[in-house]
C-alpha cells in the first residue's frame, strides 16, 4: 500500500508498522478496538484525541467510516487482510463500474492534453479537468485506472492531517530537520502546484514526498504526469480560496508545453436536509457571498469556469446493473479457491438477496456498497438475537430475511427515507377512524386498521357552529404515545409510534415535502386553502432568531395538514415527489450571479455609479434594454454589450411544461431515483473553446478563435 501525503513524511522517519504496534499495546487504545459486529451490540465511545493521534497509520483509500474498521482489521489479521475497496481497486476498464462513454470522455481529455487531439492544437485548452459527482461514483478510480493505462504519473495533493499546528511549529521543525518538508498548510498549496506542474525533474527526484503512483517511467526525458487535486485545501475560507484560485489561474496562464494538466475531483456533498436559515430566508438577495458548500463554483475562480481551459465532466451515481457486475466480480475473486489461502474461517459468500439489498441501499455509491459487501460477508452466519433487532421501519418483504435486512439497515444506515416515505404518506393519506381500507390492502393491514379503530375513543361532537371542523379521530398520532400500545409493538405497527419522535426530518423539510405533494390529495380548493394557509402561517410564525422559533412547528404543520385534508382521501394512485425547492434555490443562485455581473458592469464607469443602480432595479427594469442591446449586437458593432450572463434573468419564456424533473420518493429505495439507465449518462458538460467562442465573443481573448 503506497503511503500518501503527510503520512508519508512520518513514515520516512518512523515506519508505519512500528507505529501501529506501539499504539496497539497501549491500554487506552485497546478499548477502541472495534469489531464490526460487537459494535452493534455495545457501541464504543470514541476518544477524539486518541483517535487523531493515531492518524498516521491510516491507509490509502480509507475515508469516513472506513477508517476505524480498517485499523481493526490491520491489527487483527495483519496487512494482508485489507479493505476490499483497496484490495479490489479496478485496474482495467472492465473492472471499472463506470459507463464506457464516461471513461472514454476522460480518456479523450487525457489524450488531448498530452497529444493535442487530432489537430494537435487542443493541448493548449486541456489545462484543468473537473470531475464532479456524488461520493463513491468512481471518479478517482477512473483517473487512476486511466493513468495506469496511459502511463501517466499522478502527483497528488493531500492536506496534512495536523493542520492545527501553528505555522511556526512547522517552520521550526523545518529548520531543524531537512528531511521534513511538510507542506500541509493551505498557504503552501501554491508552491506545490507551481513545483508539481513545472519542475518535472525536481518532482521526479522528490517522488518520496509527493505521492507518485505510476509504474515506472523514470528513464524518460519528459514525463507524462498529471496533478490530481482531490483533497482540496479549505476553500471555504475566503483567503485560502483566494490563494487557491490564484494558483490555478497562474498554472493555466503558464506555458502549456511545460506544465502538467490538473485534474480536480469534487464530490458533491449534496444538499443537506436543512439548509442554512440564511440561505433559505434571504434566498433572493443574499446568497452567493457566503457560499458554504463545496462545489465547482467555489473550487474554481469565476474567470476560469466559463473559460475554454476548463473541462467539466459530471459523474452520475453508479447504475445498479454496473454495480451488480462489479460486486459480483469482487465476490467471485474473494471466494474463489485462490482466496481460501487467506484465513477466513467463518465467511461464506453473501446471498443474492443480500447483494441486491446492498445495491439497492447504496444509492449508487460504490464505495459504500463494497464496504457493506465486505461487512455482509463477514457477518453472515451470526444471527442477532430478537431483542437486539431494531424495530424495522420498513415492512420487510419476507420474514425470513428480516434479520439480515435489519442488520444491513443498521450497517448502511440508509433507512432514513423509508421512514420519510411513510411519514409523508401517513400525513397525506390522513386516515381516520372508520375509513374504508384501500381495496388492494392486504388482509393484515385491514385487520391492523380495525385494531387501531377499536382503541380510538370517539371524540365529543362539536357545537353546531363549529361543525365544519368536526372530524373523526385520526389514526395518526402526532405526539402522544399511548403506553399500552407501545408495550405490544409485537405486531402493532409503527403507526402508533409518534410521528414527531420518529421523524427523520425537521419541520422545515416536512413543510417542503407537504407543500410539494398536498395538491394531489385535495379534492377541492377549500382543502388546498387550508393546507396552504397552515404552511404559510407556520412558516412566518416565530421570531427572527433561532431561539424565537416556534417550537410547535412540526405539530402545527402535521395537525393542520391532517385537519385540512379531505377524509377519506380519494385514492388516485398519488406519487409523492421530492421538493423542487432546492433545485429552485440552486437556479436562483445562478441567476443571481448574472444579476451581480450586470450590476458590476453598470457600475464600471462613473456614470453608472452615480445612477445608484441596485440589484433589484437591475432585475426589474433593465430586461428590455439588455435584450434589445443583445439583439443589435448580433450585427457587428464596436459597442461592448452587457455580460452574457444577463440572459439568465432577462429571458423568461412562458412555457406550458414544468421546468423541473420531479423525483419520486420511493418506498423501496433510499430516496434517490434509481431510474437512470445505463445509456443515460452522456450529459457531459464540456466547455470547449471552439463551441463557446462565437457566443461569448466579447469575453474571450482574440487568439482563442482561430486556433480551434
Amino acid at each position, binding site marked *: 500500500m503506497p503511503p500518501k501525503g503527510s503520512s508519508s513524511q512520518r513514515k520516512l522517519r518512523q515506519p508505519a508498522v512500528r507505529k501501529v504496534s506501539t499504539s496497539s499495546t497501549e491500554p487506552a487504545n485497546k478499548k477502541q478496538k472495534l469489531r464490526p459486529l460487537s459494535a452493534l451490540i455495545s457501541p464504543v465511545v470514541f476518544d477524539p484525541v486518541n483517535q487523531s493521534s493515531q492518524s498516521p497509520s491510516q491507509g490509502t483509500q480509507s475515508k469516513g467510516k472506513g477508517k476505524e474498521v480498517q485499523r481493526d482489521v490491520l491489527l487483527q489479521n495483519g496487512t494482508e487482510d485489507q479493505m476490499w475497496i483497496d484490495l479490489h481497486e479496478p485496474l482495467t476498464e472492465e473492472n471499472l463500474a463506470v459507463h464506457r462513454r464516461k471513461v472514454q470522455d476522460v480518456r479523450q481529455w487525457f489524450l488531448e492534453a498530452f497529444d493535442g487531439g487530432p489537430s494537435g492544437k487542443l493541448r493548449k485548452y486541456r489545462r484543468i479537468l473537473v470531475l464532479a459527482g456524488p461520493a463513491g461514483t468512481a471518479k478517482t478510480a477512473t483517473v487512476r485506472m486511466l493513468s495506469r493505462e496511459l502511463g501517466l504519473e499522478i502527483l497528488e495533493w493531500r492536506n496534512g492531517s495536523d493542520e492545527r499546528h501553528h505555522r511556526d511549529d512547522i517552520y521550526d521543525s523545518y529548520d531543524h530537520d531537512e528531511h521534513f518538508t511538510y507542506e500541509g498548510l493551505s498557504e503552501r498549496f501554491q508552491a506545490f502546484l507551481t513545483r508539481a506542474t513545472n519542475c518535472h525533474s525536481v518532482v521526479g527526484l522528490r517522488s518520496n514526498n509527493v505521492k507518485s503512483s505510476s509504474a515506472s517511467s523514470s528513464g524518460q526525458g519528459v514525463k507524462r504526469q498529471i496533478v490530481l487535486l482531490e483533497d482540496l485545501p479549505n476553500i471555504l475560507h475566503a483567503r485560502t480560496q483566494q490563494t487557491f484560485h490564484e494558483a490555478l489561474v497562474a498554472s493555466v496562464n503558464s506555458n502549456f508545453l511545460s506544465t502538467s494538466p490538473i485534474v480536480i475531483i469534487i464530490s458533491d456533498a449534496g444538499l443537506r436536509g436543512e439548509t442554512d436559515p440564511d440561505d433559505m430566508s434571504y434566498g433572493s438577495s443574499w446568497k452567493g457571498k457566503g457560499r458554504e458548500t463545496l462545489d465547482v463554483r467555489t473550487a474554481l475562480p469565476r474567470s476560469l469556469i466559463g473559460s475554454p481551459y476548463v473541462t467539466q465532466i459530471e459523474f452520475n451515481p453508479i447504475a445498479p446493473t454496473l454495480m451488480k457486475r462489479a460486486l459480483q466480480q469482487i465476490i467471485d475473486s474473494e471466494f474463489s479457491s485462490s482466496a481460501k489461502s487467506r484465513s477466513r474461517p467463518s465467511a461464506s459468500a453473501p446471498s443474492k438477496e443480500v447483494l441486491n439489498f446492498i445495491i439497492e441501499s447504496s444509492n449508487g455509491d460504490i464505495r459504500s456498497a463494497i464496504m457493506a459487501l465486505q461487512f455482509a460477508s463477514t457477518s453472515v452466519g451470526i444471527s442477532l438475537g430478537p431483542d437486539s433487532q431494531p424495530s424495522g421501519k420498513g415492512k420487510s418483504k419476507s420474514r425470513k430475511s428480516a434479520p439480515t435486512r435489519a442488520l444491513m439497515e443498521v450497517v448502511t444506515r440508509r433507512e432514513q427515507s423509508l421512514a420519510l416515505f411513510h411519514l409523508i404518506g401517513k400525513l397525506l393519506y390522513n386516515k381516520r377512524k372508520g375509513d374504508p381500507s384501500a381495496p388492494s390492502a392486504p388482509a393484515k393491514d385491514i385487520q391492523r386498521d380495525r385494531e387501531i379503530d377499536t382503541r380510538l375513543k370517539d371524540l365529543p361532537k362539536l357545537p353546531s357552529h363549529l361543525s365544519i371542523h368536526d372530524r373523526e379521530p385520526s389514526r395518526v398520532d402526532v405526539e402522544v404515545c399511548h403506553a399500552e400500545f407501545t408495550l405490544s409493538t409485537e405486531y402493532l405497527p409503527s403507526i402508533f409510534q409518534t410521528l414527531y419522535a420518529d421523524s427523520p426530518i425537521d419541520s422545515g423539510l416536512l413543510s417542503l415535502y407537504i407543500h410539494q405533494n398536498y395538491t394531489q390529495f385535495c379534492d377541492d380548493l377549500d382543502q388546498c*386553502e387550508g393546507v*396552504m394557509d397552515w404552511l*404559510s402561517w407556520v412558516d412566518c410564525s416565530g421570531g427572527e432568531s433561532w431561539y424565537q422559533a416556534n417550537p410547535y412547528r412540526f405539530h402545527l404543520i402535521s395537525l393542520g395538514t391532517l385537519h385540512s385534508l379531505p377524509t377519506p382521501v380519494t385514492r388516485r394512485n398519488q406519487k409523492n415527489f421530492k421538493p423542487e425547492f432546492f433545485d429552485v434555490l440552486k437556479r436562483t443562485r445562478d441567476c443571481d450571479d448574472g444579476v451581480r455581473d450586470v450590476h458590476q458592469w453598470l457600475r464600471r464607469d462613473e456614470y453608472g455609479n452615480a445612477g445608484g443602480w*441596485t440589484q433589484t432595479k437591475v432585475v426589474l427594469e433593465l430586461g428590455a434594454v439588455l435584450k434589445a442591446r443583445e439583439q443589435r449586437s448580433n450585427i457587428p458593432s464596436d459597442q461592448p454589450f452587457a455580460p452574457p450572463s444577463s440572459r439568465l434573468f432577462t429571458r423568461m419564456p412562458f412555457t406550458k411544461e414544468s421546468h423541473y424533473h420531479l423525483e419520486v420518493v420511493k418506498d423501496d429505495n433510499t430516496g434517490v431515483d434509481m431510474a437512470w439507465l445505463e445509456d443515460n449518462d452522456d450529459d457531459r458538460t464540456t466547455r470547449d473553446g471552439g463551441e463557446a467562442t462565437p457566443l461569448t465573443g466579447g469575453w474571450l481573448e482574440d487568439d482563442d478563435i482561430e486556433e480551434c
Partner: protein
Amino acid sequence: MSLWVDLYRPKTLDDLHYHEGLSNRLRSLAASGDFPHMLFYGPSGAGKKTRIACTLRELFGKGVEKLKIDQRVFMTPSRRKLDVNIVQSNFHIEITPSEVGIYDRVVIQEILKEIAQTQQVDISAKQRFKVVIINEADSLSRDAQAALRRTMEKYMSNMRIILCANSTSKLIAPIKSRCLLVRVAAPSEDEIVKVLQYVASKQPFRSIDQNVAREIAEDSNGNLRKAVLVFEALKMQTPDLSGPLTIAKPDWETYCQKVADMIIQEQSPQRVMEVRSKLYELLVHCIPPNVILKTIADHVVDKVDESLKADIIHWAAIYEVRLRNGNKKIFHLEAWVVKVMTLYKHFFFGIDMDGFD
C-alpha cells in the same frame, strides 16, 4: 457605452428638469450650513437618487463625483464573513442594505461608527461632516433601524445621513422624526416628454417624435428611468422610431400577467400545481417575491368582479406581511394564489360568504 439613463443624468441642481421648487429648497439647504438628516421618498424612477447626488454636489463641489468602489469585509456575530461592495468618495459613502440581507445591522453600525469617529481632515473641504447615503431604506430590518436612531443623534457633528426610500411606511417613527422628509413625486407626462426630448437632442438623431414620446411617457407610469430605458430599447429595435411601436415589457411582467390569467381561468388543485411552477420560475429569475405578488394581484384585480377586489387586495396585504416575516417565499405566494382561487370560485358559485373574514 453607458446606458442613456446614466449618461444623461443631471449632475447639478440646475440641470434638473422638473420639481424646480424642490431644487431651490435643496440649494438653500445646502448653502445654509445647517444641513439636516434627510429622507427622500417617492415612487421608483422619480429622481430621488439624482436629487441626492445633485445635493451632494452642491454641498461638496466636484469632489463627490470621484467615486471608488471598495470591497470591505465585515464580521457577523456568528463569525461569518461578509464581503460588501461600498461606493464612496472623500465626502460620502453609499450603502445598499438589501445586498447584505439579515446582516444589515452589522454593516450599518460598523460603517456609521467608522465615519463618525473620523473627522474630516481635508482643510479645504466645504463641510465638516461626511454624508452616509442609505439606499432602499425601506428594506432595512427593524434591528438596523433601531440601531440607526441613536447614532443619528449621537454623531450629528461628524455625519449626516440621507435615506432613500419608496415609502415611509416601513420606517419606524423615531427615524422619520429625526429626518427632514423630502417627497420626490413622480414626474408628470409632460415632464417626461420634455426629458425624452432632451435626451434625444443629445443623440445624433437630434429629435424624437412628439407622439412617440407621449406614448412612452404614458406607458412608463411616471417612472422616468423606465421611460428613458424604453426609449433606448425602442431606438435599438426600430432605429427610425416610425410605424406602430410596441413597447417591450420586461419578460417577467408579461409572465406575471399570464400567471394572473391562469388563476382566473381555472380553479383546481391541478391548476395550483401549474401556477406554482410558474411562481418558482419567477423566483428563479430573481424577481423579488413582493413584486411578484403585487404585479399578479394588480392583474387579477383588473379582471374580477368589483365585489371581489377588496378581498383580493386584503389577502395580498396579509400574505405580503407573511412574506416579510417568513422563510419560504413560495408558501406565501402560493397561499395567496389558493386564497384568490377559492374566493373567485365561491363567488362564481354564489356561495354565501358571510362570516368569512
